[in-house]
């Protein structure tokens, strides 16, 4: 049976167990009328369902995790050639060939006789594994259901047991978030260390030229892997984006929070926030086919030489994307500033703009700085706009009218649909990813700390 049908059977078993437990607990209650049952009858049903399905499910998971390794080692022990003399790559290729043959994907004609025998053997092993697994699960389901059915007594604290299981499940759910972070850090650190075994870290972090030639593994020419041009491009584009987004976003926030009537605010705010919900690929396309040519023509009219795909194009469009980010965060922060501060300033005769510039904004400054940092981290990590509109030319330049490349673009270029991470050319993507992760993490933590401090000040 396939794994999916096993899971479906387990669901069926749960439904059955629930019914059995329900009926059984009612019978028990009827036979012992003088002793009240500890829990409601559906609790007993759930308990039986859990006992029947959960252990078998855990066995299934363990089996799925461990069986491939066990089957491979059994297969290798049966293969007539000396396995220990093979390198890891050759071994993997051999196993892949055999499993292709077994799955009818391989070309049977050029297979050697021992390979065919191994494929037959593998198919047999897999069939056996499924049979053993099904039988094992059936036994465990039966034991679990019977034991739990016969343990139903008025004293059994079914509800507490279920609640304990649910609580463990909830804890596991929250563990996933932590595991994701750990997974990100571990996988990227691992691959980055592999990358540093080819290219020394100093060359990566301080190199001023980026030219990763895709050469075959093992040749001397590996190309140059300098991070600086990419980092410069990233900063340039993010800087332009912030130049566009900060003044616009901040003024929008000020106007909506301080001046606008409630009706205007209720219409304008969601409309501007539509910008935040548009997928970045759409911005990228917009930048590529509309903004880029427009800026090029504008530059030509002014006598400037602006590339259609340039740091400026990507930066301006990214700035548009970030406006609602800054405006709604700052808006929240501005409305948190106590009214007493405004009233005090107005009472002393200051105009509204003077109050905003000299009292409200300084008071809200930490929060706004936090918002700006969050927006900057988003700008640095943004990918699709830059992939389409920045021109992808990793040159170390400060000229915004030229094509540049960024960290994110390079990750996409070095690692598009490749599952062979053995050359430095693809491993470098993980080193770049780790750099990006650390930079954005620092910005985020700084922003969170600042915002949190600020909240405490006024709460």
């Amino acid at each position, binding site marked *: 049976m396939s794994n999916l049908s096993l899971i479906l059977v387990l669901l069926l078993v749960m439904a059955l167990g629930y019914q059995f437990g329900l009926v059984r607990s009612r019978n028990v209650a009827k036979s012992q009328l003088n002793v009240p049952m500890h829990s409601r009858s559906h609790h007993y049903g759930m308990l039986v369902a859990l006992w029947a399905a959960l252990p078998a499910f855990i066995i299934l998971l363990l089996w799925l995790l461990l069986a491939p390794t066990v089957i491979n080692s059994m297969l290798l022990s049966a293969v007539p050639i000396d396995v220990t003399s093979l390198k890891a790559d050759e071994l993997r290729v051999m196993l892949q060939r055999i499993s292709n043959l077994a799955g009818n994907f391989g070309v049977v004609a050029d297979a050697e006789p021992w390979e065919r025998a191994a494929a037959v053997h593998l198919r047999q092993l897999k069939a056996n594994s499924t049979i053993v697994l099904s039988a094992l699960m059936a036994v465990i389901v039966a034991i679990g259901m019977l034991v739990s059915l016969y343990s139903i007594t008025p004293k059994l604290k079914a509800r507490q047991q279920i609640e304990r299981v649910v609580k463990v499940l909830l804890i596991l*759910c929250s563990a996933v978030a932590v595991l994701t972070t750990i997974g990100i850090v571990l996988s990227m650190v691992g691959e980055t260390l592999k990358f540093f075994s080819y290219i020394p870290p100093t060359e990566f972090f301080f190199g001023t030229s980026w030219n990763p030639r895709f050469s075959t593994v093992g040749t001397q020419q590996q190309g140059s892997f300098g991070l600086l041009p990419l980092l410069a491009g990233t900063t340039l584009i993010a800087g332009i984006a912030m130049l566009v987004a900060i003044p616009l976003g901040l003024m929008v926030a000020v106007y909506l929070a301080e001046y606008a009537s409630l009706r205007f605010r209720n219409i304008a705010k969601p409309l501007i926030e539509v910008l935040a919900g548009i997928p970045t690929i759409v911005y990228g396309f917009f930048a590529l086919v509309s903004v880029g040519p427009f800026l090029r023509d504008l530059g030509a009219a002014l006598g400037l030489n602006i590339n259609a795909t340039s740091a400026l194009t990507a930066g301006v469009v990214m700035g548009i994307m970030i406006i609602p980010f800054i405006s709604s965060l700052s808006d929240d922060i501005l409305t948190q500033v106590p009214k007493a501060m405004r009233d005090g300033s107005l009472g002393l005769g200051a105009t509204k703009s003077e109050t905003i510039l000299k009292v409200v904004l300084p008071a809200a400054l930490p929060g706004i700085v936090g918002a700006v940092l969050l927006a900057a981290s988003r700008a640095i990590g943004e990918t699709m706009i830059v992939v389409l509109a920045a021109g992808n030319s990793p040159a170390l330049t400060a000229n915004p009218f030229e094509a540049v490349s960024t960290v994110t673009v390079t990750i996409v270029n070095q690692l598009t649909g490749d599952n062979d991470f053995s050359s430095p050319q693809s491993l470098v993507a993980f080193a770049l990813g780790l750099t990006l992760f650390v930079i954005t993490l620092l910005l985020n933590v700084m922003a969170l700390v600042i915002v949190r401090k600020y909240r405490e000040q006024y709460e």
Partner: protein
Amino acid sequence: MKIITDKSIPHTATLSLVQQKVIASLRHRQRKETWFRRLGYSAVLISLALVAILFANIFSKGLPAFWQSAITLDIYFDPQIIAISAKPERRADELTADYQQRFLAWQTEVGFINFNRLITDSLQKLVPDGTKHKRDLARLVTSGERFALRDMVVAEPSIIGQTRRLNLLTDANIDVWLKGNIDRSLPDEQQQLSANMRDWVDALAANGVIKNRFSLALFMNADSRSSLASAGLAGAFMGSFYMMLVVIFLAVPMAVGAAIYLEEFAPRNKLTDLVEVNINNLAAVPSIVFGLLGASVLIGWFNLPMSAPIVGGLVLSLMTLPTVIIATRSTLKAIPPSIRQAALGLGASKMQSIFHHVLPLAIPGILTGAILGVAQALGETAPLLLIGMKSFVASVPASPLEQASALPVQIYLWQGNELRNFFEARTSAAIIVLLMMMLSLNGVAIWLRRKYQRHW
């Protein structure tokens, strides 16, 4: 605030020097006030204008692509060209495998038939001088349509010998030519269509044989590279659909579970503080980093298939998890403690008080957060590129384990197509489809919030 206007100020001559100074400075300050206010107003207007420009731009480019030029032909399913044996019928005493064998043999037979002949024969009646330029004639109709004819024959063999009036898609370049997306004055060597094709097309369009019709191909077909005019979004749509299913059934329950634990059960200590900071950070990690995680862990270690929606769904689930956790937590936080206390006071256990009383009240808020998370996942592109979903897939995936594309990735692939004149509009049309889906998701979220929002 009462503002001193010019009228309320007495004539300058009667005022002292100090008063005059004050009045001058007041005027100056009021002017500054007006300017500041106008600055804010124009910032809002500029932002709104940007929204309008973006949408107007995409829609003006994309809407024409929903209609595509098609040619109306009377196709005679000539028995001399379609010389095939009868379609095998399943015999009662026959094994399934034998029937399959015979059916496959028959399909191979069908595959060898030159269905293009049917099209060119029919075209010759409309284009008298077409016989001299057979090659050009065959190029009028996009190459994918001959497979449509084949499928008609396979589905209904009795059609052989009959004549049917069909609307067939023209070549992509003809669509470009008729829509005026190419400069008609360009010299011959820069035109995609030969001179006689251009004349034919103009004549046929004037006759009404070639017409702009609503493009079903855009919605019914998968991507195509050989027959550009019939490239559609169906494959990408199904890929996105499977991924959203994974997100809905994996990320949403998990996020709600995590949020319940963190908000209701977790003790307040250093560890839960760390988990909270971690979740907040995870929400701000660039999406491409999740793609790297998927590439190295899911594909590298767990050996899951490349380009499969299940892997994409898992990556997007991890990405949306923190968003939904944060939304759910703030919803739970907003539910007043009196609800919990009342339940506990009546003898409910903590678990019961949460699952029977708090959670039902939180469901609108949780749904809003979940929908916004799903919408975010629907539009995400970068992580999918890293797990191989960039590859060209010419079929509609039948299960989440098969190779597939996704809507945003399809947009990325189409914008890079060489036939720019045609695919700029087609890409914009795909964007419109994606935006409509996202806007309707967001609309549902807003509606839910409006309808069920409670102020405690």
